[in-house]
């Protein structure tokens, strides 16, 4: 399940839905990202390339399914204006055993960071500025090759 949009999500409901879909999963690992309020951040404004985003995420979900024996995957990414504390991204992977679920979750987050076409702008009291991509994120994605 892949969903991209402005709406918030309910982690418990998403987990229950994934587990129901995944059948006999003994392990479900999840990651939820929240907006941090560093340096007086008022909000993050996220834009994306709608025609490409879900397709790009789907490509990485397929790659994860080839690497690990997954029984189900959920990816949710929000766009629009989000204030500190709000949920921004959710990745969950279901598998028979924990290692595949943990690793797939981390792999998907690392790949989302460097491939999914989202761009963040920070809103501060004195104006807005675009978030720069981080080298450390590139390195994190490379280790899965």
């Amino acid at each position, binding site marked *: 399940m892949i969903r991209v949009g402005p709406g918030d999500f309910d982690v418990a409901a998403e987990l229950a839905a994934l587990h129901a879909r995944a059948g006999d999963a003994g392990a479900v690992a999840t990651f939820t*990202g929240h907006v941090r309020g560093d340096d007086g951040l008022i909000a993050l404004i*996220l*834009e*994306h*390339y709608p*025609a*490409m985003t879900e*397709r*790009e995420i789907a490509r990485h979900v397929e790659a994860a399914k080839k690497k690990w024996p997954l029984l189900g995957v959920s990816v949710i*990414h929000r766009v629009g204006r989000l204030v500190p504390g709000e949920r921004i*991204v959710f990745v969950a992977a279901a598998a028979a055993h924990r290692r595949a679920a943990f690793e797939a979750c981390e792999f998907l*987050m690392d790949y*989302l*960071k*460097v*491939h*999914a*076409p*989202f*761009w*963040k*702008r920070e809103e501060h009291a004195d104006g807005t500025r*675009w*978030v*720069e*991509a981080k080298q450390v*994120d590139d390195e994190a994605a490379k280790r899965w090759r």
Partner: protein
Amino acid sequence: MNLLYFAWLRQKTGRSEEQFDLPQDIATVRALAEHLARRGGGYAEGFADLGRLRAAVNREHVPFDAPVADGDEVAFFPPVTGG
């Protein structure tokens, strides 16, 4: 072809999308970007350093030496910052 711009590049070009007739002598993403830079103004600023940009052709990430053809959807943008 359809050209798309995102994030600060969209602000520089002043538009998110435009229709473009691909000149016959442009065969790669790099040549297209260099052509757009020669329009001057915000395009010159936005496309001044291709090292700061990435590209997608028909919704797939591509290197700058990738081919382009009329009818393609070509997007230019800064490195992504989602997650």
